[in-house]
């Protein structure tokens, strides 16, 4: 069983880690190797409510768990820097293990010249788990990146990665997969001035038990990030990807283009912020399920306060989705407000958004004339008002002890009440870092 091997691996590496922890922590600082460990107890709860045929269904999954972890890392000033982290947890539904490690070789300017990283995750379901998909699994990833050439302001990068996911009992919904990829690119060098990267990636993903959905992808992406001295900032990101399917009749070829723009400008003792995101999909053979579409969303807002002190924000959010003649096309608008404080013993954030989505077609939510007009253009969508609430909190109870909470709730109230739905998530953790 891969899971059992992972547990043994974890215990072995954890054992190594625990031994030096006391001595290392006594003098641990920025210039020394440090070993730390932590214990966590808490629960995760997920709720998804939606109509199931003629009844409302609220599906709630709650899992209690305890977790032990260790982390070791080298001094952050040397030429060779490494980090290793291991975790193991026991939950009411799952056992989980995680082992991550990376190593970097850094040049005199602080830029990474070689980076190697690997991770291994394992999950084993308990016999009485209520999860519908409960095959034990192991997942791994290894990656290598090198900088073969560096100039004063820029450097070239090249690398590759490999990932795998293996299930103890594969099924059509739990499929083993492998992926290999390579990347070449260039990026800015140094910590000053605009930070940018440009990358060209090639990846091949295969499913040994279902070769029909194998795929290859080419993608080109660029990212520019500039922090101005006056506190303003701008970030641009674009990624274009070409997906080539092994069997386009099963899963069509596709082009996707994704652009993110985010900027903050000092204004009236605070910051005016704007975020815009565009995403488009064009399929080689559009089907009833894979529709050519374009999504544009954005937030225009204002933020005021210090990031370590109380900070508040207000904004207008909007989204437009175009999918040709499909009734799925919609326009959405909302108002967003938030407060946050990240610096105190009690810190966190609360954000609230309220808005409405109007679909292009069939606002009444009734299926009509399907026998006449055909299948694909007849699916009813109903307009809705929505709330989005998100809470993030942390209370430092004492040295090394904190209580962490995260919660979100997103109800939708539709004009056709049978379409009402809500998503919820709650997470509470008591963390001890001796």
């Amino acid at each position, binding site marked *: 069983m891969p899971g059992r091997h992972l547990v043994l691996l974890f215990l072995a590496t954890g054992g190594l880690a625990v031994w030096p922890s006391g001595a290392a922590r006594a003098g641990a600082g920025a210039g020394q190797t440090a070993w730390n460990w932590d214990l966590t107890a808490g629960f995760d709860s997920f709720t998804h409510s939606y109509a199931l*045929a003629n009844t409302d269904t609220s599906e709630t999954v709650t899992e209690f768990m305890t977790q032990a972890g260790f982390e070791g890392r080298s001094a952050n000033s040397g030429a060779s820097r490494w980090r290793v982290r291991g975790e193991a947890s026991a939950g009411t539904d799952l056992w989980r293990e995680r082992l991550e490690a990376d190593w970097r070789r850094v040049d005199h300017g602080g830029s990474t010249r070689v980076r190697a990283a690997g991770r291994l995750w394992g999950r084993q379901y308990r016999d009485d788990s209520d999860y519908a998909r409960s095959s034990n699994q192991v997942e791994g990833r290894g990656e290598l990146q090198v900088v073969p050439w560096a100039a004063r302001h820029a450097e070239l990068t090249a690398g590759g990665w490999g990932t795998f996911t293996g299930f103890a009992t594969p099924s059509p919904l739990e499929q083993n997969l492998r992926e290999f990829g390579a990347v070449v690119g260039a990026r800015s060098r140094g910590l000053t001035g605009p930070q940018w990267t440009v990358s060209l990636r090639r990846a091949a993903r295969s499913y040994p038990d279902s070769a029909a959905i194998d795929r290859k992808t080419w993608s080109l992406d660029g990212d520019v990030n500039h922090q101005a001295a006056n506190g303003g900032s701008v970030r641009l990101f674009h990624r274009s990807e070409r997906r080539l399917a092994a069997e386009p009749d099963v899963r069509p070829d596709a082009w996707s283009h*994704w652009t993110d723009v985010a900027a903050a400008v000092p204004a009236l003792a605070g910051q005016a912020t704007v975020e815009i995101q565009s995403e488009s999909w064009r399929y080689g053979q559009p089907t009833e399920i894979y529709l050519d579409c374009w999504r544009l969303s954005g937030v225009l807002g204002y933020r005021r306060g210090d990031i370590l002190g109380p900070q508040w924000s207000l904004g207008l959010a909007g989204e437009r989705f175009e999918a040709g003649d499909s009734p799925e096309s919609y326009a959405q608008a909302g108002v967003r407000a938030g407060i946050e404080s990240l610096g105190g013993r009690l810190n966190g954030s609360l954000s609230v958004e309220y808005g409405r989505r109007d679909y292009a077609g069939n606002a009444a939510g009734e299926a009509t004339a399907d026998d006449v007009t055909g299948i694909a253009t007849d699916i009813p969508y109903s307009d809705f008002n929505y709330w989005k609430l998100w809470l993030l909190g942390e209370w430092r109870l004492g040295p090394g002890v904190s209580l962490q909470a995260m919660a979100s709730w997103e109800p939708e109230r539709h004009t056709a009440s049978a379409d009402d739905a809500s998503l919820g998530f709650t997470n509470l953790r008591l963390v001890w870092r001796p």
Partner: protein
Amino acid sequence: MRGQTRGFGKPALRAAVLPVVLAAAFLAVLASPGAVQAQTGSGEQLRAYIERTDELLDWASGLVADTNSEQARMVLEQAQTIQRRATALMERGRLLESFAVARRARDATWHAVRLAREAASLEERIRLRAERFADQHSQLLDRARDAGDQRALELLQRAGEQARRSQERFQQGDLELAWNLLEHAEELLRRAARVLAQGVWPERLRLEIERTHSLVEDAGERLGANAPAAAAALLAEAEDALARAEEASAQGDPGRALQMAGLARRLAQRAIAQVEPNADGAGVTRLLERFDERAGAVAEAVLSSGNEPAQQAFARARAQRDGAAQALVEGHAEIALRQVRAAHDLLDQVERMLR
């Protein structure tokens, strides 16, 4: 632990009213003259309707099978169950009931198709977002570790946990929730990036306290031994606030430390204002002088190091310092203050690069 509750709320009401209305229309046909022929005709229409729903169910099954959505599968299963009941009722000649049930099967089929469409789009969007998340998370983690920024590291750890939750929901076929959790993970990542960009912890805090020290000392020198009682009292309060800021900083409470440092500065400025105007300008001047001292101490090391990024950062720090001095001359104390603080931040980076 998983709990599942099913009830009859508003959706059930709608589902109950609609068949009644349709059944009433059906009854009107049956009660009309020529009822025997009409009943035969309605039976044929019902059969056609049910056969068409069968076709739609087959079509929907193909779409749902193409996705990873657990919800779409559950709704489709329910639709198939209801459809079988409608067919059985029709074969027993209970046409009115059969028609009402068949309508519900048709609604459930559309619902399953909607969920499948959403899932097909979400699967690829989640994959792309997760890839970018992993890239950014890894880059920010390296930066936070190099900067020794504990606050950013904690945010990144929580972001990573949230991304793993998203991945687990994805594997369970709960794609909407997976998307939702990934969006939250990205938000945590953005916060960590903001914390890192502003050099919040511990560098910025050290600078803020250092700046406050300078200002309070400056206020003490300006007030002198014969300061008015009110000004002396304000200065004493400023010194007390500064001590509390240092205490909070030592206790790992940077937010309170910053608040107290800010209070100390305001009190010191008010104390100076009691004896002379334009306190802001004085504070900036003091920071400019402090910058010149620090820059002078590292200038030779920067030039002889051959470290190009450090030299660039040093040049930018000098440019910011000159900009601050110019802004001060032009009477823009706030702009000057921001620029001289940026100059100090850059000088911190230079010092780190040289270490």
